[in-house]
C-alpha cells in the first residue's frame, strides 16, 4: 500500500506566506498599540440623581424629545457591571433607548465590600430597588414606572414586580432566569452541586474573579484560546483592537457579590428552584408570580449557554398577566446587547412595546 503523500511543499509555501503577513501585521500592530486608543466604555452622559450606601441611580441625559410619559428603570445583575449596556457609541443599548425617546434610569450597584456581606435579596429588592423606584415615582409624580431587568437583575425585577405590583406599569425581562431546574446550561448543573454555605463563610462576599473564572471554564477553548488568537489575527486593526479592549474591560470588571445574597440566590433559586413554584420568600413575604398582572415582555437568547431558553421561557406562563410575550433572539447571553443584528431589533422593539402601553397614570 502506498504511503499517503503530504503536500509538504505547499504547506511550507503557505507557512512562509503567512509568516510574511504576520510580520507585516505585527509591524503595524506596534503603531496601533503604541498609539492613542479609544477604549473608554460607558461614555453616554448621565448624572447621579440618588445614592444610598454603595448604590447609585444614574439618569441619562435625553438626546431627543421624550416620547414616553413613563420613565424606564433598568436593573442590572450583581455579577459584572451595567457598563455592558453602553460599551461604545455604535453598540449601546442605552443610546438606542434614548434615541427612541425613552427617559432612562439605571441602577449602578457599585462594588460591595466586606461590610456588605450580610445584605440579602430582601435588602436589594425591598430596600435599594424599592427606594429607587419610590424616588423616580416622586420625581415624576407618577404612581407607576416601567421596569427592565437584566439577568440576575431581571430575577430581582420579577421578585420586585410580584411584591410591589402597584408600582410597576410594564415589566421587561431580558435573559432572566426564573426556572432553575434545567440541565440545558452547565452553570445550572454546577451551581446545584456547589457547597455555597462554606463558600460564603470563607469568602464573606463571593469574589467576582472566582465567578469569572467559572464563566471562563464554561468554554475554555473559545474564551481562553480562540478569542485571543482572533485578537492576534486582527491586531493591526485599530477599531477591532479598541472594541476588543472595551469588551475585556467589561468582562473582567467583576464586583464581588454580597455573601448572603449569593447564598440565597444559589440555595433558593439554583438548588431549590423556589421562584417559579411561587414558594420563594423574600423579606418574610412569599413571592407569588400570579401577582404580576402588568404587561410582561420577556427576551432570551436561543444560544445562551449561561441562561438557556428553558430557564427563561416559563415566566410568561407563570405570571398573572394576560399581556405577556416571549421573544427569542438568535443569539447568546451577551449578543442580545452587543451584536449589531440585535442592536437593530432589541431597543426599537422595547420602545415600540412600551409606547403601546404608555397611558399616563399620575399620582
Amino acid at each position, binding site marked *: 500500500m502506498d504511503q*499517503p503523500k*503530504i*503536500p509538504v511543499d505547499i504547506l511550507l509555501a503557505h507557512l512562509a506566506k503567512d509568516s510574511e503577513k504576520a510580520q507585516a501585521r505585527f509591524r503595524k500592530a506596534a503603531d496601533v498599540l503604541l498609539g492613542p486608543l479609544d477604549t473608554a466604555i460607558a461614555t453616554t452622559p448621565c448624572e447621579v440623581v440618588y445614592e444610598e450606601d454603595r448604590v447609585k441611580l444614574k439618569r441619562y441625559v435625553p438626546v431627543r424629545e421624550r416620547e414616553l410619559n413613563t420613565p424606564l428603570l433598568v436593573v442590572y445583575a450583581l455579577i459584572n457591571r451595567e457598563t455592558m449596556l453602553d460599551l461604545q457609541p455604535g453598540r449601546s443599548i442605552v443610546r438606542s433607548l434614548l434615541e427612541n425617546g425613552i427617559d432612562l434610569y439605571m441602577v449602578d450597584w457599585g462594588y460591595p465590600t466586606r461590610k456588605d456581606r450580610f445584605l440579602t435579596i430582601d435588602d436589594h429588592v425591598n430596600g435599594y430597588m424599592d427606594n429607587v423606584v419610590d424616588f423616580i415615582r416622586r420625581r415624576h409624580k407618577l404612581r407607576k414606572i416601567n421596569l427592565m431587568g437584566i439577568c440576575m437583575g431581571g430575577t430581582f425585577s420579577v421578585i420586585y414586580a410580584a411584591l410591589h405590583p402597584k*408600582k410597576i406599569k410594564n415589566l421587561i425581562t431580558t435573559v432572566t432566569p426564573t426556572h432553575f431546574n434545567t440541565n440545558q446550561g452547565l452553570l445550572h*448543573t454546577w451551581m446545584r*452541586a456547589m*457547597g455555597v454555605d462554606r*463558600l460564603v463563610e470563607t469568602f464573606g462576599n463571593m469574589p467576582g474573579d472566582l465567578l469569572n473564572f467559572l464563566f471562563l471554564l464554561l468554554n475554555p477553548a473559545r474564551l481562553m*484560546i480562540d478569542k485571543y488568537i482572533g485578537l492576534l489575527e486582527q491586531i493591526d486593526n485599530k477599531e477591532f483592537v479598541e472594541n476588543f479592549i472595551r469588551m475585556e474591560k467589561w468582562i473582567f470588571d467583576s464586583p464581588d457579590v454580597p455573601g448572603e445574597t449569593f447564598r440565597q440566590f444559589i440555595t433558593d433559586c439554583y438548588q431549590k428552584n423556589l421562584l417559579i413554584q411561587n414558594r420563594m420568600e423574600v423579606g418574610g413575604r412569599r413571592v407569588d408570580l400570579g401577582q404580576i398582572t402588568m404587561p410582561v415582555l420577556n427576551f432570551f437568547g436561543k444560544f445562551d449557554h449561561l441562561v438557556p431558553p428553558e430557564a427563561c421561557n416559563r415566566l410568561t406562563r407563570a405570571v398573572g398577566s394576560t399581556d405577556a410575550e416571549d421573544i427569542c433572539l438568535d443569539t447568546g447571553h451577551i449578543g442580545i446587547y452587543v451584536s449589531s443584528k440585535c442592536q437593530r431589533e432589541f431597543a426599537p422593539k422595547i420602545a415600540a412595546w412600551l409606547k403601546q402601553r404608555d397611558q399616563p397614570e399620575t399620582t
Partner: protein
Amino acid sequence: MTDRKPPKAESLEDFVASWMKAAAEFWGMMGKADPASKTPSPDTAFTRTAGRMEEFWASSRKLWEASVKAMGEPGSAERLQRGLQTVPDISMRLAQKSLEGFFEFQKRWADHMQKLGAPSEPYRSSDFDPDFLKRLTDIYKKEFQKFLEIPQVGLTRFYQERFNQALKKWNQYQAALTEFLQLICLPIEKSYRLMLDKLAELTQGGRFPDEPKHYYQLWIKTLEGHYMTLFQSQQYTETLVRTIDALNQFLAARSSVLEDALRLLPVCTHRDLDDVSGEIYQLKRRIRALEKGRHDPAEE
C-alpha cells in the same frame, strides 16, 4: 557466671553512670560558682536576687541528684535505651512510609504514562484514570496526614493545631487542584491525538488541507467538543466542586493562623470587622424599617 550481664547493657549502664557523675559535678560547681553562696552580705535587692538564684541552683541540684538516684536503679538504663530506640523507630517508620508512597506513586505514574500513547476515542473522557490521583491522595491521607494530626500539648497547643490544620488543608487543596488540572488538561491531550488521527484520515483520502489555518480551526473545534463532553460529565462536576471545597477549607484554615498572628498586632481581624459590620447592618435595617414604614398603604 549466672550473674554476668550482657556486655551491651553493661556498657550502657557504665556510660549512663559516668555521664550522671559528670553532670552532678557540673551542677555542684555551678552552685558553688555563685558568689552569693560564698560571702554573707547585707539585705539588699541584689543579695535577695542572689539568694533566689542560690535557692534555684540548690533546687536544681536536688532534682538532679534525685534523677541520678532513680537512673542508678536496676533496669533504668534499659528503659532509657528503649526510649532512645523509639526515635530511630519513628524515623524508620516515616522513611518506610515515604518510600512506600514514592514507589506507589512511581508505579501509578508509570501506568499512567503508558496510557498516553494509547489510541483515543473522540469526545470521550473515559480513559482518564480517576484512581491514579485518588490513590496518591489516599496514601497521603493514610500515611502522612496522621503526623499532622498528632495531638498537641502545652500552652501553645491550639496555635500548633491550627498551624498543622492549615498545612493539612494546603496539602489536600494541592491534591485536589492537581486532580482538577489533570482533568482540565485531558481534552487538550486528547484533541491532539484526535487531530493526528484526522490528519492521517485526510491524508489517506488525499484531502490534506493546504492552509495552516485549517489545522487550527480543526483543532479548536475538536478541543471545544472535548471540553463540552468533559464538562457535562458527573466526574468533572464532582472534581470541580471538590477542588473549590478544598480551596475553601484551606483558606479558612489559613485565616485562623493569620488571625492568631494578627492578634499580636494592633489591627482588626476579619472576624472583628464582621462582628461590627453585622451589628451596623442590623441597626441600619431597623432604622430603615422605622423611617420607611415598609407596609404603609399610602406608599403603595
